[in-house]
C-alpha cells in the first residue's frame, strides 16, 4: 500500500486508541456539535477570521457600488453601519433590544427550569417518559411564535410582553427537556455502585453522580433552548409585538418604511445578541463539562 492510499486521518499519526470517544447516547438528534465545534486558538487563526469579515464587508460594498444596486434592494454595508451609529440609537434599537432581552430572559428562565426539573423527574419512571414523549415531540416541532397572537387576544388578553414570554418558555422548555432527559438517562452502574458502597442516599447519588453525568447534555439543551427561545421572541414580535415593541417589531416597522439600512442594523444587533448567548453557554460548557470534550 502506498502512502497515498492511506486515509488522510491515519497518515503520520501514532496509533492511539486511548482518546477514542466512548459511545454516548445523544438521543434522536445529536446537538453536541454545538458545543464541540473547533475554535480558533492561535493569533494567525483569529487573523484569518477577521480577514474573512473584512473581505465579505468590502466585497459586498464594492459589488453593490459597481452594480449600482439601489438601497431598497440591498443596503450597502457602510449604510448599515451609518444607520447603526445614529443619535436616535436608544429610540431605534436600544429600547427594543431591552424589551426583547426581557422577553427572552424571563421566558427562557421559566421554560428551562421547568424543562430541567421535568427531565429529572420523568427519566426516573420509564412508563411516565413513554406517555409524555409524544407530547414533548409536538411541543418541540410546533413553532411557538405562531401562538403569540392567540395568547395576546385569547388566553392572556394583554398587550404586555407576557404572551411572548410564554411562547419563549414553550419553545425553549421542551428543547432543554429532551436534551437533559438524554443526559439523565445515562446510567453508569459502576459509579452508582461506588456511591452506594459509601452509603450514599438516593438524593446524594443524584447530586454526586447522575447530575454531573448529565451536565454536558444539560448544557447542550440550554444552548439549543436559548437559540429556539431567541428565535421565538423575535418571531413573536414580528407577528404580534407588545406595546413596548422589540427588535422583531422594529424589523417589520423599518421594512414597511423601506428603510433597509435600518433593517440591516436590527439584524446585526440580533446576530450579536445570538452570538453572545452562544458564547456564554460555550464558556459555561468549557468550565463545567470539559471533562467529556
Amino acid at each position, binding site marked *: 500500500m502506498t502512502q497515498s492510499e492511506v486515509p488522510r486521518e491515519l497518515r503520520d499519526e501514532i496509533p492511539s486508541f486511548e482518546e477514542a470517544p466512548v459511545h454516548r447516547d445523544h438521543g434522536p438528534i445529536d446537538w453536541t456539535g454545538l458545543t464541540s465545534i473547533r475554535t480558533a486558538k492561535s493569533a494567525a487563526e483569529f487573523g484569518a477570521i477577521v480577514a474573512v469579515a473584512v473581505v465579505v464587508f468590502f466585497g459586498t460594498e464594492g459589488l453593490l457600488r459597481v452594480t449600482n444596486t439601489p438601497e431598497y434592494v440591498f443596503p450597502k454595508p457602510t449604510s448599515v453601519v451609518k444607520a447603526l451609529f445614529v443619535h436616535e440609537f436608544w429610540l431605534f434599537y436600544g429600547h427594543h433590544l431591552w424589551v426583547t432581552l426581557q422577553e427572552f430572559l424571563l421566558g427562557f428562565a421559566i421554560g428551562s427550569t421547568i424543562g430541567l426539573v421535568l427531565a429529572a423527574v420523568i427519566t426516573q419512571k420509564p412508563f411516565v417518559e413513554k406517555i409524555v414523549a409524544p407530547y414533548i415531540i409536538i411541543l418541540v416541532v410546533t413553532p411557538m411564535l405562531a401562538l403569540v397572537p392567540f395568547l395576546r387576544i385569547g388566553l392572556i388578553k394583554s398587550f404586555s410582553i407576557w404572551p411572548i414570554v410564554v411562547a419563549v418558555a414553550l419553545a425553549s422548555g421542551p428543547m432543554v427537556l429532551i436534551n437533559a432527559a438524554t443526559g439523565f438517562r445515562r446510567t453508569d452502574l*459502576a459509579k452508582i455502585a461506588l456511591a*452506594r458502597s459509601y*452509603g450514599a442516599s438516593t438524593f*446524594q447519588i443524584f447530586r*454526586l453522580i447522575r447530575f454531573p453525568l448529565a451536565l454536558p447534555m444539560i448544557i447542550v439543551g440550554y444552548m439549543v433552548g436559548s437559540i429556539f427561545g431567541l428565535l421565538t421572541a423575535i418571531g413573536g414580535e414580528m407577528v404580534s409585538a407588545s406595546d413596548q415593541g422589540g427588535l422583531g417589531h422594529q424589523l417589520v416597522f423599518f421594512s414597511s418604511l423601506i428603510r433597509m439600512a435600518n433593517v440591516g442594523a436590527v439584524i446585526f444587533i440580533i446576530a450579536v445578541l445570538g452570538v453572545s448567548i452562544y458564547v456564554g453557554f460555550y464558556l459555561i460548557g468549557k468550565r463545567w463539562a470539559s471533562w*467529556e470534550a
Partner: protein
Amino acid sequence: MVLSAPDNAKILVRGATKIYETKTGPVHALESFSLDITEGEFVTILGPSGCGKTTLLWAMSGLHALSRGEILLDGTRVNGPRPHEIGMMFQDANLLPWRNLQKNIELPFAIKNRPVDGKRISRLVDQVGLSGFETAYPRELSGGMQQRASIVRALAQDPEVLLMDEPFGALDAFTRDEMNLLLLSLWAETSKTVVFVTHNISEAIFLADRVVVMTPRPGRLARIFEIELPRPRTVEMMFEPDFIELIREMKSTVESAVRHTVEVE
C-alpha cells in the same frame, strides 16, 4: 442453622445463592457458596468469567441482596452497604471524570458528611507516588495512576475490610505486577482483611494467603488452596517451580470444574 466459626472470623458466607431475574429468564449466578474469612487474611477468589465472583463480592459489600443464604461481617448480617467497615474497589479505577484526583479521593467523606482527613490522604497519596497530581483530572492520568488513586480512595477512611473486584484487570502485565506489589506493601502495614476477585491465576497466587477457586455458573466452591509462599513476596517467586506447579494445579482445577459443568448440563 447453627453457626460454628472460629473466634477470629471476620466475614462468614453461609450458603450464598443468587438468582437474577432477567427478561430472558432466571440466571443462576451463585449456588450454596460458603466461606470463612479470618481477620487480617488476604483471600483471592479465582474463577472463569461469569462464574459469579462479582456477584459474591457485591453481596459481601451489601450492594445487592442474596436470593438465599447470608453473609455476616463481625457477626452481624450484611443487609446493605457498610461504609464504615468496608472499602470497595471496582473493575477499572472507576474515578469520577468530572472531579480532580483530590476531589475523587475525598468522595467518601463528602458522602458521609465527615471532615476530610487531609493528613491521612496526603500520606497515602505520597505512599502510592501520586504527590503533585492532586489537581489532575482522571483523563490526564495513565491507567496505573488512576488505579493508585482508586486505592487511596478505598483506604482513605481506614476501613477494616477491603473488597476488590478485578481492580487490575485492565492494566498491562508490568503495571499489574507493580500494583500488586504496592497493594501487598500497603496490606503489610495495616491489618486489613482483603477479598480480591480475579481471573488471573498467577495474580491470585501471588497475592493470597488462600486462593478460593470457583466453578463456572452457577458459581460453587471448587477448591481452596493454601499458599505457603513466604512474605514479603517478590516478582521472582513467580518463576520458581513451586509457583508454576501451583498454577498448573489451579488451571486443571478450573478446567475440570468446567468439564464437570458441561457434563452435568
